[in-house]
């Protein structure tokens, strides 16, 4: 599309949208401005993916929240964690029992001196931390005792400790914001039942 055509298309957006885009992206190319205007003008899509707060800290879209931390590692902390991750081949299948966890990753940074821990989970920041302290304390402490200053999962200071190293996301997108892990399980069971029904029918 020619530059003029892009300008013409941009002009078709409501003035309030154009003004917002121009103010924030005054030095951007018209093609980018057009993309930004398209995003802002789609009210339904914007509403479905609205970014709210995950409570204490972090962003939330629909039911799904994000948590990103960069934690200082103890000397040889990365080595010990690598042994564990190596043993299971990087497969943390057991974490599925948490039931709110969509995904999580462990990445070593800065010559193994820091750990990037990032996860997407259902609901808000606070509700289930207390449950980890009585349901899976050994696992939590095994993983995080390699982190400098880890107070222990049963410590009253553990929440403040995590918050200290959490970096809230500036932008957050979830394809299906209202699809929790539990809902996903239910839909899989439902789909299996539908498929069984169709097979039996034929």
């Amino acid at each position, binding site marked *: 599309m020619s530059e003029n055509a892009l300008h013409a298309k941009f002009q078709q957006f409501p003035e309030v949208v154009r003004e917002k885009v121009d103010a924030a992206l005054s030095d951007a190319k018209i093609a980018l401005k057009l993309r930004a205007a398209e995003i802002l003008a789609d009210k339904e899509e914007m509403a479905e993916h609205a970014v709210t707060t995950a409570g204490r800290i972090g962003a939330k879209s629909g039911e799904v929240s994000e948590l990103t931390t960069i934690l200082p590692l103890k000397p040889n902390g990365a080595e010990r964690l690598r042994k564990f991750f190596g043993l299971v081949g990087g497969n943390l299948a057991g974490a599925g029992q948490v*039931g709110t966890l969509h995904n999580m990753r462990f990445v070593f940074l800065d010559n193994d001196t820091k750990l990037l821990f990032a996860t997407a989970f259902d609901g808000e920041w606070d509700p*289930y931390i207390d449950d980890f302290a*009585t349901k899976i304390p050994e696992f939590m402490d095994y993983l995080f005792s390699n982190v400098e200053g880890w107070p222990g999962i*049963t410590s009253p200071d553990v929440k403040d400790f995590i918050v200290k190293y959490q970096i809230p996301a500036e932008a957050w997108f979830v394809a299906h914001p209202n699809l929790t892990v539990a809902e996903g399980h239910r839909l899989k069971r439902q789909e299996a039942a539908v498929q069984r029904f169709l097979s039996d029918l034929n």
Partner: protein
Amino acid sequence: MPSPLFRRLRRPPTLDLDDIQATLLRARPEPYFGTHAILEITEPAAGRELLRRLAPRVTSAARWDEPQPSWLALAISYQGLVALGLPETSLASFPANFRAGMAARAERLRDTGVNAPERWEFPFGTPRVHVAVTVFAASEDDWRAEVAAYEKELGEVPGVRLLSHQDFAADGFNVFGYRDGFSQPVVEGSGAEPLPGDGRPIKAGEFVLGYPSETGVPLPVPAPDVLGRNGTYVVFRKYHSHVAAFNKWLHDNASTEAERELLAAKLVGRWRSGAPLALTPERDNPAIGEDPNRINDFDYSADPRGLRTPLGSHIRRMNPRDTKLTVLTDVNIRRIIRRGTSYGTPLPPDRVKDDRKPRGLDFIALGARAIDNVEFLQSEWVGSGNFMGLGKEKDPMISLQDKGAYFTVPGTPPRRVQNIQSFNTLLGGEYFFMPSLSAIRWLGSN
């Protein structure tokens, strides 16, 4: 006469029962009479004097299993501790949600719309709610005598102002016509004998500050130790109950009395007598409701799909027992001691028109985690269905329902009952700290 629902003290207690307030362990009598009063401290010295005067009237939990004609409980909000002139180091040792107060936690508690703090009745939601005094009594005369004694002290201390005075009375059944208040966790070290279905005793530190909790270590205790130890937190929430709307919804969705009673039992998880669906799924059996050895003697192991007791029913949400939850949760750290009281007269099931009279429930939860737990319950177990795999379905009795909400009665096929409404509306509430008897004396002398 002691209520048949009174527990018996069968083992030697290991808690400092002489120092812990009675309400933590003492069951409500049946029938019961009482008053909740909210006070404002306008002069720190006057607040301390009132505590000195009331201290001898506050009853301890010693011999909590023996009947007592009346007793008095006292709890203080964060603003109340400030008004008493507590030092900053001590104030800062209280948890953040207690310091913020209930109104400031509205988002976390899902107290929005008609339940929002802006719509609460005075004095709730204002920083003037400082001290809560509750009188419980087993007879009208004892209640009046206890209230008169406390009011005499109050009247002699200028600088402390009465903001609200609410009387309550009931016979053990709430205004919807259901027996309530009989399911409590067993506190380890209290000496209580577990009744069938109570589950294992739960570590004392979950309910009283200063003792090991379920994690093995005590939860944080406010400083200094004399102030925090043997204390606990109280969550107070006053609800107006829309009994006529509840009755009408039942009439709209069921055509005979038997069908209505069954549908209502599916919402609650129990029949009016207290008998659980788990033990008597087709009709009420008052003999079970009257028997403390049977009323809680069940689990959900034979009912994973909720065909008897719906997964979304009120009692299964509030105490899932052995239900397999979709989210990793320790049900033993989510227990609260409930000392709720009913006010106003019940409305019979055939009344479907609102008479606009005040009636409802003062929800009262006690425990070392009571504030965290009520915030957890409100957002996870009341305001959502995700933990049971029920999507966005909410608690059918105490949640704030959205437009177009429904309740699913499991079955083959399941029945989806439309247009369920909010049957209880929040009128206000506050977070309180319930100090030990020695802490009350300490606060009074400081």
